[in-house]
Structure formats: structure tokens, C-alpha cells
């Protein structure tokens, strides 16, 4: 028995160490990590500054997926050439970011702000209630338009610009243009947030407010305005992630995307440390690599359904046992 296991392990190891295998796993890991960082960074920023665990974050991603798809379905016509689709695709991403930023800001001002001074349980119940409302509304709208809430929106998938659906060879491995785009966009999002937090006055306010909101207010900073900006931008990022997931064959626009992405976002921010953007980036890399490695193992060697998800959650459990505050977490964050 032990000999058989050893042989199987050696077989997996030999296969894994093939240059093509490593490149494939790394590419898959990078694209997944990029998606996870886009999904989770908004949640992390919101918790870091405001101490609010936004359960509706996944719903915002799901709405972003449908919204991005809708912009393309409405604007792209059958005979439209590549460059025009290319431009419309970026406009769809920008429009989704704008719309979700506005929605997030409105939610913060009208629903969350009045309960800042209450127990955290009120915020959890409120955002959980939002999940039910937003997901049910999405289900109604989707069904009214003749779509199945649990099936991917095929008509929207067909509007993708050519560069997303084409295949390219990188490091000897053939990969979708979409995956390369995800890596690029994820890197841009990380660099953008990093620059915003470390190079701008408002970013400095947000970092200070994350540590001690009361002290920050006493220095003349309107922290509540920062709350609105962060909640809005966090929602916008969730929307952008959704708009990209819309065309990703591993995801696609469905109503349950809401819960799927919320789970991933929570796993990433908990591993990274609640409220730490640096932790979110590192954790997204860890989760993306684990997911990619386990997906490869499942597809090639271990026919065990749910293996990637199970191992990802085991990583979460392991981190929580060794370092309960997460890799880069601090004892206390956020507040009002």
C-alpha cells in the first residue's frame, strides 16, 4: 500500500516538474489570483477602514457581471469589427465601475451610515439582508429577460472582443487572451490601490482612519466622507471583477456567482488578515496558486470532486490555527 502511494506520489511529482506543467499552473494561478485580488480588495478596504463586514460584496460582483454583459449586449452588433468591440469592452468595464461605485456610495449613505453607532451585528444583518434583496431582484430581472439564473448568459459571452477569446502562447503554454487580460488588470488594480493608499492625501487619511478613526477625526479629517469613498470604490472594484468574470469560462454571469465570489473574498481577506491590503494581495496569490495546483491535480491525477475548494479551505483553517489574525492582520481594525 505504502509502495503504491509512493509510486503515485513520484508519478505526480515527475509530471508536476515538467516545464510545461509548471508554466500552465503558474499562468492559471496568476489569472485566478488576479481575479481574487479584484474581488477581495474592496471587501478588505471596507473592513479595514470601517470595520464593516459587507456580506453584500458578492452580490455587487454578480450585479457587475450582469451589468458588464448588458452593456455589451446592448451596444455590440453582429457585424461589429474587432477594434470597436475592444473599445466597447473597456467602456463596459468603466461603466460597471462607475455604476457600482454610485450604488455602493448610495448604500453606505442611506443604509449603513445610520447604524454605525450600533453593534456590529446590525451591520452584518443589514448587509446580509441586502444579499437577499439584491440576489432576489437579480433573479427576477434575469428571469423576466428569459434567462436561467443558474445558467451562464451565453448571448453576452458571444459579445467578447476577439483578443479575449483568442489563444496565445506564453512560455510554451497555450492560454486564453482573457486570462492574460485578467493578470494585467489585476496587476493594474493592485498598483492603482497601492499608489492611492501610499501616494495620495486621501489614501493617507484612509490608512490613518483604519488604525484610529477617532484620532483621525480629531486631526480635522472627515472620516465619514472617507467611509463613503471607500465603500463606493470597494463596490466599484467588486463590479469590475464581476464584469471580467462574465467572460471567464470558469465563472460566467449567474445569480449564484454572488455567493461563490463572497466565499472566495472572505477566504482571501481572512487568510491575509482582515483589513490589510498587503495581506489581501499575498493571500490572493496563495489561494490562486493552491486553486490552480489542486485543479491541475484533480484534472490529471486525483479524481476527487471538490478537491480545489477543499484544500483552499484547509489552507484557511491552517492559517487560522497558526495565526488567527491572518498573515498580515492586526489585533483591531476599523471603527466609527
Amino acid at each position: 500500500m505504502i509502495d503504491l502511494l509512493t509510486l503515485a506520489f513520484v508519478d505526480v511529482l515527475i509530471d508536476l516538474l515538467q516545464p510545461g506543467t509548471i508554466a500552465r499552473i503558474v499562468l492559471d494561478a496568476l489569472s485566478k489570483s488576479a481575479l481574487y485580488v479584484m474581488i477581495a480588495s474592496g471587501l478588505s478596504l471596507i473592513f479595514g477602514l470601517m470595520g464593516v463586514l459587507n456580506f453584500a460584496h458578492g452580490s455587487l460582483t454578480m450585479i457587475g457581471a450582469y451589468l458588464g454583459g448588458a452593456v455589451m449586449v446592448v451596444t455590440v452588433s453582429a457585424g461589429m469589427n474587432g477594434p470597436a468591440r475592444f473599445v466597447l469592452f473597456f467602456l463596459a468595464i468603466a461603466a460597471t465601475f462607475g455604476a457600482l461605485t454610485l450604488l455602493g456610495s448610495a448604500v453606505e449613505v442611506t443604509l449603513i451610515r445610520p447604524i454605525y453607532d450600533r453593534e456590529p451585528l446590525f451591520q452584518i444583518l443589514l448587509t446580509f439582508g441586502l444579499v437577499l434583496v439584491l440576489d432576489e431582484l437579480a433573479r427576477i430581472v434575469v428571469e423576466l429577460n428569459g434567462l436561467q439564473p443558474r445558467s451562464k448568459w451565453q448571448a453576452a459571452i458571444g459579445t467578447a472582443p476577439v483578443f479575449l477569446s483568442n489563444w496565445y502562447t506564453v512560455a510554451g503554454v497555450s492560454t486564453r487572451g482573457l486570462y492574460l487580460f485578467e493578470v494585467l488588470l489585476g496587476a493594474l488594480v493592485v498598483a492603482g490601490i497601492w499608489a492611492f493608499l501610499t501616494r495620495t492625501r486621501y489614501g493617507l487619511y484612509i490608512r490613518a482612519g483604519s488604525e484610529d478613526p477617532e484620532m483621525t477625526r480629531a486631526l480635522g479629517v472627515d472620516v465619514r466622507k472617507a467611509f463613503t469613498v471607500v465603500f463606493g470604490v470597494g463596490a466599484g472594484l467588486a463590479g469590475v471583477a464581476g464584469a471580467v468574470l462574465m467572460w471567464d469560462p470558469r465563472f460566467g454571469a449567474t445569480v449564484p456567482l454572488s455567493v461563490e465570489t463572497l466565499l472566495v473574498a472572505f477566504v482571501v481577506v481572512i487568510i491575509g488578515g482582515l483589513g490589510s491590503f498587503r495581506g489581501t494581495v499575498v493571500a490572493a496569490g496563495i489561494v490562486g496558486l493552491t486553486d490552480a495546483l489542486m485543479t491541475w491535480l484533480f484534472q490529471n491525477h486525483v479524481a476527487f470532486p471538490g478537491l480545489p475548494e477543499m484544500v483552499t479551505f484547509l489552507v484557511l483553517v491552517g492559517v487560522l490555527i497558526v495565526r488567527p489574525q491572518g498573515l498580515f492582520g492586526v489585533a483591531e481594525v476599523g471603527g466609527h
Partner: protein
Amino acid sequence: MSADAPALELDGVHSYYGESHVLRGVDLAVERGENVALVGRNGVGKTTTLRSILGLTPPREGSVRLDGVDVTGEETHDIARRGVGWVPEERRMFGHLSVEENLRVATRPDADTAAKVEEALDAFPALRDHRDRDAGDLSGGQQQMVAIARALVGDNDLLLVDEPSEGLAPQIVAEVVDALGTLADDVTLLLVEQNFPMAMDLTDRFYLLDHGEVVESGDSDAVSQDDEMIRRYLSA
């Protein structure tokens, strides 16, 4: 704004933590350029008085006026922007921000931030070598210097300083006293301090707080020798 109004005036201020009635009608006034101590035993409401001025613990009754303008009920950030600097108890550094970033947070949005930071570092040269270090990694004395510099860098003319000597070694306390003594000439100061001799040395006048009320006030020079009062109100 009234030209001859006190820089700070509290009139019958009542403040609570939940149902706990902490300030029971505090009256005090600090004239422009004056240095005033607020003394009293632990738990009599000194810190709450400073928090009430800043709107962090908003008064339920009474009023707080800055230069004659009633600011009761205003948001904390609006009160701070009127030129009120706060050096809180236990310093409350942004521990994960550098010393320089701690100072930059406190500058006014329309100010020349770099110039203001340099001014603050000129005033506290010991901090210059640590400007890029996380404030949380500094010693208690260095953190106190940052806290004072941070309160000044926003062009504030009224400083509320809460227990600056708390938790510091005697030698460091002397440095903090020097620093406060230097800047006390240029600003209006309301100092909360348990170290009674130090408070009297740094200030012109004092208010003695007991059970949330001002029970005594006078010149700091006169009270320094008044052992009976020290014994009655300040001894543990």
C-alpha cells in the same frame, strides 16, 4: 467671532458615557495665549472635558465656545479645523504609519505639507532621524514628541494636552516638559496632568476638577505652595 472673547469657554457642560453622568456643569475659560492646567484625581472628568471640547463625547447640556463661537454639537473634524490640536492620553500614534506620515495626516489640505513637516521636525530635531520609521516602533518619549508635533503641524492655536508625562521615565518627562515649555509661549494651552508640580510649572492658571465639577481655580504660582489643597483634592 469676537475679538475679546476667550479662546476657549465652557459654560455648564454636562457630559455622559451612556447613563454615567461624568461632567456635572463644568465652567472654565482660557484666554488667548494663556496656559491653563486642569488638575484633579483620576476619574474626575479631566479627559472627558477635553473630549467634550472636541465633540468626541458631545455635551448633553451646556455649551463650548471657541473664540466666542458656539461649537457645541459640531462634528469633531469641524471643531479640529477651527484650530484645536489634541495630544491625547497614551499618545495614540498611527503605529503603522511613519513619523512623517503621522505629521502629514495632521496638516491642513491647503497647506504646503512638505514645509509644515520640515517645520515640525525643526521644532523636534530628535525626530528627524526617525522620520521614515513606523511610529509604533518609537520609544514612549519619541512617540510623545510626535504626538505634540502632530498637534502643532495643523497650524492650531489651541492645544489640548492630556497627561503628557504618563508612562514616561523621569528623564524623558524632563524633555517633554522642555518641549511643552517652549511651545507654550506661542499657543493657548489647556493641560491635563496628574504630575501636579509639572502642571503648575508649565501654566499660568489652574482649574481643579472634582466629581465632574470645577471646585477651585486660581493662579498656578499661588497654589504650588498650597499643600492643604494638594492633599485634599489630589492625593490618592
